């Protein structure tokens, strides 16, 4: 019995890791007032960038691979920042374009890596008899760090201020556009890291459509956890556990597999509806989703 509990927790943590990393990235974006629905694409690009470096040579530097995934994620999100912050485009639609572009470009440019071997994957750590990816540990630490950063540091306060009331922040001399740019690119780096976990640790291979909808779930998770990094840990674990159930019950029950493959997405809808009914939207950053134009209200 103990074994099953440990196994469930370990597997939930594993699937929960990319969800958590991408959610943290989206939280960072959205706390600064910029919605980013494009995490699916950001993850795909990050996964490809990491894999391209790691598969290039048998002794490839994995740190470099991870760094490249974060840079790739940040670069893709720079397009989002340019469109939505500088050129005031609709943030929701830009996120959709980002998701299309990211999955498309990764699928196109990654074609040569399909079936390619990965000489050295990121080794798991053995903690208390269970194999845990270093990415999981990093993700959990990042959740704590981001929570502390947002609630207790001055730059964190500045980031939140441009998300809550950009006009007031502007009056106080905060460069709203710059802060939002940095937050969007920082969030993109975290999304890229989520991708690196998929291609270097979780699957240790490259395939098209690697994120498989995880990026969309991560984006929805942000609303469910009310933009709180620490709550995102619980949310990611919950959905990770759901994926574990799907994996365990497949083929062992009279219920058709399709019910399980649709389950995470149905649950996202249920969870969003519950959050909506509770009026969770009220805890969204007040300036979320709107470009800031000085002098306009």
């Amino acid at each position, binding site marked *: 019995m103990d074994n099953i509990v440990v196994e469930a927790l370990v597997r939930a943590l594993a699937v929960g890791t990319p969800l958590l990393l991408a959610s943290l990235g989206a939280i960072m974006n959205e706390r600064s007032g910029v919605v980013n629905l494009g995490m699916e694409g950001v993850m795909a690009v990050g996964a490809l960038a990491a894999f391209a470096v790691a598969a290039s040579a048998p002794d490839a530097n994995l740190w470099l691979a991870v760094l490249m995934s974060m840079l790739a994620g940040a670069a893709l999100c720079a397009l989002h920042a340019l469109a939505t912050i500088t050129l005031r485009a609709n943030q929701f639609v830009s996120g959709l374009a*980002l998701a299309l572009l990211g999955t*498309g470009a990764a699928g196109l440019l990654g074609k040569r890596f399909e079936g390619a071997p990965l000489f050295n994957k990121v080794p798991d750590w053995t903690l208390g008899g269970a194999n845990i990816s270093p990415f999981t540990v990093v993700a959990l630490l990042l959740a704590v760090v981001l929570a502390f950063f947002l609630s207790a540091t001055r730059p964190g306060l500045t980031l939140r201020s441009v998300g809550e009331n950009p006009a007031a922040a502007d009056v106080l001399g905060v460069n709203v556009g710059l802060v939002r740019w940095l937050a969007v690119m920082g969030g993109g780096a975290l999304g890229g890291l989520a991708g690196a976990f998929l291609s270097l640790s979780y699957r240790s291979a490259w395939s098209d459509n690697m994120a498989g909808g995880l990026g969309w779930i991560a984006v929805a998770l942000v609303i469910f956890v009310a933009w709180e990094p620490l709550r995102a840990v619980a949310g990611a674990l919950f959905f990770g556990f759901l994926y574990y159930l799907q994996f365990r019950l497949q083929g062992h029950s009279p219920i058709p597999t*399709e019910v399980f493959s649709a389950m995470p997405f149905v649950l996202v809808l249920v969870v969003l509806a519950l959050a909506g009914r509770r009026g969770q939207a009220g805890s969204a950053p007040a300036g979320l989703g709107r470009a800031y134009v000085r002098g306009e209200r």
Partner: protein
Amino acid sequence: MRFVALPATTTARAALVTVAAVVVALLICSVIFLVYGVSPLAVYSSMLSGTLGARTGLAEVGRRTIPLLLIGSGLALAFRAQFFNIGAEGQLLLGAVFAAGTALFVPLPGPLVAPAMFVMGALGGGMWAGIAAWLRRLNVNEILSTLMLNYVALAVVTYLIAGPWKGKDVRGYIYTDNIPAGGYLSVVPGTQVHWPTLLLGIAVALGLQWLLTRSTFGYALRVVGENPGAARYAGLNAAGVATAVALITGGAAGLAGAGEVAGIHHRLLEAGQISLGYGFTAVIVAWLARGNPALCLVTAPLMGIILAGGDLLKIDLNMPFRVVDVFSGVILLTLIASEVFVRHRVVWGRA
């Protein structure tokens, strides 16, 4: 750099900015093709000569234009009401499911099969979008809900064709039996252009344009979309408008799904074969048309070229079909990023 609002926006300026946005998008795509390792010239010439330069190619463009026109004109209406329906893919699939189910399991006299398929298809698509409209009343963002519903629709189709609806004579394959011959639509000889659906698409595009610009409902829709504050002040029922728009746009996508079943496949089969990404590509059709359903008559064939061209690139240059997503993503990004230039002029230097 500052943006100064123009006193009025002109159609000419909007058209110019749109063309410029598409040109910039094609340039950005060129860079991606160079990184991939093919010459952008080879890509574009392969796409153009294979689609516009050949009769079979034109037919392939035509075939893809049909669902894009139906879905795109519905989405154009939805975007005007600020209802961002990204789930046309799922609505199309549900339309296909309802249409195929009707043809397969409801005994109808021959001539009634095809019309019944379209009616039920619209119902299926509308219902699927209706879920998102209902969720929106619970404060669930429709972009997320319609997207999640895409994945659910995919599971529904897979379940049906591999399970209860699996055909008797298909052995290892997963699809249903053929629908009765009465449900087959006529096509332009030698092609897969099912013209009855094309005519339906043209009628829908023009009808929705009329609805948007000439009817009371269209006026309410535009006010709700452009100025929610004024709409509330005027006592307009914004939630009701959103629901109606969801049903219309979902219904149009459902018609497209019914058309694909009745006109091309004649059975329900895997989701990836019923829709070649029409739901997402139609978003760009609607955005290119800048929210005018009738303009989709021009923009749907344009995106049809890109979809048919994507197939050609697979054959000619061995590129993955994902290239279509690259085109879609980049064009959508440049289009929305260019919108500010329609209403503003740029002044360099500080205020």
